[in-house]
């Protein structure tokens, strides 16, 4: 089952929620919609669920425009942020709610509900009411409920945001396992980049109602196509540099090739990940380590350059011994193409 957003536009009063969104989720893939709040990711998901109508554009499922199909006739199961279980029904009745709407017989409802609760690991909670369960258990039941009608698409609207960290990690792994087991096309809205990168097949980064980049997690991290993606996903340093306009940039006394838009000339910010920055202890170095933070295998150094720019560098912890706070150092970059952004004057 393929889901396709085509040139979606939607405004709420003066705010533009979607400004021409084009995006495709392929059969059986987990696509994460990632972006800051207000970027339109939830609106896009709600359009797919049928809770919002686009001002213009189309939502296609398997090539068919479903814009006019009412929400309850769409073949989509949805898990909401939190507290969406029906408080007056037990876990089993919640799961069986959709089957009741489809007039499935009581015996079959019961066995299917039991099967689904088994699937999400809560077979012993069938008779519990929502308020008798923890947040994580409630979201598992909500997941079972969303899957009860064997939908073609699974929609997840920040289902983990209300849970505490440990449960969140557990549940996202479980969601991923189930999604792969059932090979169900899934759209997962989140503002948590770690969540998106660790669970999704592809991540679509959105900004101001448009798609910035849609790619696999590794590609998104290693070769972000825009400065926004680069800074939103992971940590990013901004180093002052000077682009020559012929596809190279001078930064930290090195000359490096520019990736992407090579035509930029003049003062630029060079975007580099902390793990790509190398710092070595050097008595004559112009940079100075201002803080260190031990992260196990790596230590993150905060280094002030001669011109006052702060750089974060992740270096292997065994090499960090000579680089305590206050030490002088030299900072270098690897000979690899870098992303640049023209500096705002």
């Amino acid at each position, binding site marked *: 089952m393929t889901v396709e957003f085509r040139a979606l536009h939607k405004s709420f009063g003066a705010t533009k929620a979607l400004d021409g969104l084009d995006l495709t989720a392929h059969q059986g893939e987990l696509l994460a919609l990632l972006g800051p709040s207000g970027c339109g990711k939830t609106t896009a998901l709600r359009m797919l669920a049928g809770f919002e109508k686009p001002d213009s554009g189309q939502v296609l499922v398997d090539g068919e425009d479903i814009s006019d199909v009412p929400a309850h006739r769409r073949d989509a199961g949805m898990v909401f942020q939190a*507290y969406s279980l029906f408080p007056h029904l037990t876990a089993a009745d919640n799961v069986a709610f959709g089957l009741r709407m489809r007039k499935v017989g009581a015996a079959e409802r019961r066995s299917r509900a039991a099967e689904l609760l088994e699937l999400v690991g809560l077979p012993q909670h069938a008779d519990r009411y929502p308020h008798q369960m923890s947040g994580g258990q409630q979201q598992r039941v909500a997941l079972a409920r969303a899957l009860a009608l064997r939908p073609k698409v699974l929609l997840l609207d920040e289902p983990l945001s209300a849970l505490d960290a440990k449960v969140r990690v557990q549940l996202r792994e479980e969601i991923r396992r189930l999604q792969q087991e059932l090979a169900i096309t899934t759209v997962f809205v989140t503002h948590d980049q770690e969540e998106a990168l660790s669970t999704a097949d592809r991540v679509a980064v959105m900004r101001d109602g448009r798609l910035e980049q849609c790619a696999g997690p590794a590609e998104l991290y290693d070769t972000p196509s825009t400065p926004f993606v680069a800074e939103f996903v992971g940590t990013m340093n901004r180093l002052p540099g000077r682009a020559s306009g012929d596809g190279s940039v001078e930064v930290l006394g090195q000359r490096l090739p520019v990736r992407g838009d090579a035509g930029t000339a003049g003062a630029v910010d060079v975007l580099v990940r902390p793990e790509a920055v190398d710092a070595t202890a050097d008595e004559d170095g112009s940079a100075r380590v201002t803080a260190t933070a031990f992260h196990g295998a790596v230590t993150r150094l905060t280094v002030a350059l001669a011109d006052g720019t702060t750089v974060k560098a992740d270096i292997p912890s065994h090499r960090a011994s000579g680089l305590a706070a206050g030490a002088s150092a030299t900072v270098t970059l690897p000979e690899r193409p870098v992303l640049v952004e023209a500096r705002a004057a």
Partner: protein
Amino acid sequence: MARLTNRRGIRWWRGAVAAVAGLYFLVPLACSVLFTVDVPGQGFTLSAYTGILGASGFTGSLLLTLELAAATIVLVLGLLVPALLAARLGAPRLRPLLEVVCSLPLVVPSVALVAGYSGVLRWGPQYLSRTPLFQTFVAVQNADFPVVLVLAYTVMSLPLAYRALDAGMRAVDVRTLMEAARSCGASPVRAVFQAVLPNLRGALMNAGFLTLALVLGEYTVGALLGFRPFAVWIVGIGGSQAQLSVAVSVLSLLLTWALLLVFAAAGRPRTRIPRRALAKAAPALVPQESAS
């Protein structure tokens, strides 16, 4: 810990407040009861209570009031529930307007309201005597079941019912419940009836009860329009038989309480942990042989 040292003080204050409040409510009630059973010259007698059932008009007026109350509850809920749901789901900006409209009856005293009603009731038939609407005016004033009282009570109970329903809707996330039900394949109407209303049971019961209490105690409109619901009957009987009218008041108070308890019991959400689940989760807590 501060909490432990304070607890005794808090308990003491609670007791004092409860005692003062209790005295405030119970002393007049006790005096009323005493007045009805201790008749000068006769000593202790329950004749006032036994006389109630025989008093002319008691059953009729009580039944009329209960019927009016039932009709009012149906009308109020039938108006308010769809309006509040629609405002919550479709037009949140209309909610303040709805609140103001529903609160207006608080500002208009019932005497003013009834003055308006009687004006219309007098004016209408004169001008409409040749139209079919004339019959309408006759029908709404039928003394067996004065529809006009239902209309008046509905307006008067709007503020109470609005608050009860609004509080209930605040407590549940109506929009999410609707959307969850719809994504489970429920049409909008079924979503309202099967996912939203069951979770507003307490609020519906509260709104119903407040309306019932209002109708049971309403005197002004009924009396001024010349009908004889329960409250009007009590006042009427009070002029001639003082003991009897107080006894009726005491009884109607108890009746209201009893109805309140019934409503509260019916409106309570089902929070009981099913025995089966409890037995599995904590077998030690469940006695092997249940007494019930």
